């Protein structure tokens, strides 16, 4: 029950660090590569999860903690994932006709403007 001796697990923090850097590079790479939007999203988020896992496991020492970590983190994770999922059917899409979108209702000229500048936009998307 005492905590005096701090954990003697030796983690090669430098290795973890390089993995994290590599992952960051990877997400930037995915952004630059021309893939379909959906694929990019999935890949980039997967990389983020991998990074999060390594930070939690090694930097935050969860790998070496007792079972309390599950008691604390399992419900948190469920709620954290559950909340957006529960919000989705109402906010992420709507069951009824939504008349609020302004592209059509409120700014016909903006649509025009967008069209005019579409070419320029595509150009810049590549450069950036």
């Amino acid at each position: 029950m005492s905590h005096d001796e701090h954990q003697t697990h030796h983690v090669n923090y430098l290795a973890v660090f390089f993995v994290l850097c590599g992952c960051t590079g990877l997400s930037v790479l995915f952004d630059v590569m021309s893939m379909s939007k959906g694929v990019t999203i999935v890949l980039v988020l997967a990389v983020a999860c991998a990074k999060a896992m390594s930070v939690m496991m090694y930097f935050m020492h969860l790998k070496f903690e007792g079972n309390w970590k599950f008691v604390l983190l399992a419900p948190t994770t469920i709620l954290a994932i559950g909340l957006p999922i529960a919000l989705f059917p109402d906010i992420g899409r709507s069951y009824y006709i939504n008349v609020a979108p302004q592209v059509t209702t409120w700014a016909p000229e903006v649509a025009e403007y967008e069209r005019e500048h579409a070419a320029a936009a595509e150009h810049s998307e590549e450069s950036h």
Partner: protein
Amino acid sequence: MATITPALETHGHGHDHAHGHHEQTFIQKYVFSTDHKVIGIQFLITTLLMLMVGGALALAVRWQLAFPWENMPIVGKLFGVFQGEGGQISPEFYTMLFTMHASVMIFLVIIPVLAGAFGNFLIPLQIGADDMAFPVLNMLSYWFMWPAIFCFGYSFIAGGATAGPANGWTSYPVLSDIASASPSSGEAQTWWLFGLTLVGVSSMMGSVNYMTTIINMRAPGMTLFRMPLTIWSMFITAILQAFALPVLTAAGFMLVFDRLHTLIPTSIHSVFFVPAGLVVNNAAPTVGGGQPLLWQHLFWFYSHPAVYIMLLPAMGMVSDMLACMCRKPVFGYKPMVYSMAAIAGLGFIVWGHHMFTSGMNPALGMTFMTSTMMIALPSAIKVFNWIGTIWDGDIQFNAVFLNCAAFVALFIVGGLSGIFMAAVPVDIYFHDTYFIVAHFHYVLFGATLFGVFAGVQFWFPKMWGREMHDGVQKVHFVLTFIGMNGTFFPMHLLGIAGMPRRYADPYLHGYLEHLLPMNQFMTISAIIMGFAQFLLLGNFFYSIFYGKKVGRNPWNANGLEWSAPSPPGHGNFDVPPVCYRGPYEYSGPESEALGQDFILQTTAPPAGVKVAAAHH
């Protein structure tokens, strides 16, 4: 674990016992104290006073409903000063009244009295710790209440003294978001939001503290399943707070940023909850990309668990008190624990039942309906176990017991009306009628407050070393019970008759005209009940100074707290407590062996007597 005989080692982790007895100034001792008992009592007195404020607001609401548009007697003059209308309640003012009534009652009375007052006072005492895990944080959690009270209070006058926040305690955008939609709220609504955030911060500090204390600072032998149900309930409540409250805080910030321009005109002006194309008060159409339903979801994601935050601690305390007053073990201790856990777990997935008519996706509606129905199940288990606890007990008919019995009786009513509303088609009719108002006053007032009344009297001796006058408490009980039912039972009928809530003048609508006399009857009941509260206050403050002196264990109860001196000194226990059994071994063989009907958790088992297992 049932027969553990813990070594008499000192407990605690990274937590030394050296409370250097340096002299404390008055301020350190009673004002900015870090002693959990002082903080608990500070919370208790603050909330009792806030109960008066909230109650006075409620009576003003009732006045308007019984005597619409008539000048208020006595206090009318006072309001008249604010309003310049000779004490007549204007519709804006009425809206503000019930908004602030609910805000005060929920955020400044019920939540802080349960977790803040009883939680603070009881947790270390009942688990045998000398204080909370983080005493300074604990002190801060009390002192964060005051800026909140200030913000709520300031919001009364911020709007140029005509009206305060007037969007209901649920504060639904777009009404609460676009300043011109409810002009009388203006700046006041923004202050109200600050107040809400601050009470959130206060509760949050408390909850982290409670969880840590309960997990890590139990006395030797105090295993999880030897903890009193009060502790279990506080623990589960703290978990609910910890996971639900941050969501409200975040949503509150979003709404604050939507409204910040009402305070600082040139500041940012976000649109989290405002969609495009609304024409409010003939202004130019709004431009935005937000969604009003987002607030409702985020708000109820907190506020539904919050209604259990407002109930579970009372449930725990009532279980403790019932066992003691019936001289019997709690019937089904483990089912009681599990059902509280189930209420908490299910409590997170039912929030949508407040939104059945809100334009929510019907598929969500069905899901939320089913989960809501299921949450009645653990509540049912609790009700049956309370009755089982009373059953065949050696009942002490004092005011503590009566208030606890009323808790059970009235919770049943409030819970059962919840079943009607959980059923979506029926709720379509009942939503936003007085049926809802009846429901939540039965659970909030009928259950929680009666539990609080009992708890105040039960633990009073531990707080002050004196007891409250039982006779006065009984009179208070009878008056409050009758007044409460007289006020709130007819609300069910009003709801069935289709009277919408939040109406300054329902009688404008022909089919509600004939309900005026009933409303007058309810108002009179409410006034009686209101004045009955003076008995409680009077008894409370009188007994602090002149009550009968009592010893450590006036109720012959079992909990660890009763082995400490009354009132306990700094550090709580004169003998470091060791726990040998569960808290409910009333009238068992062990106690019989001692020739009494109780046995303290700290009493070492006499040689030769097998220690009763608290669970099976």
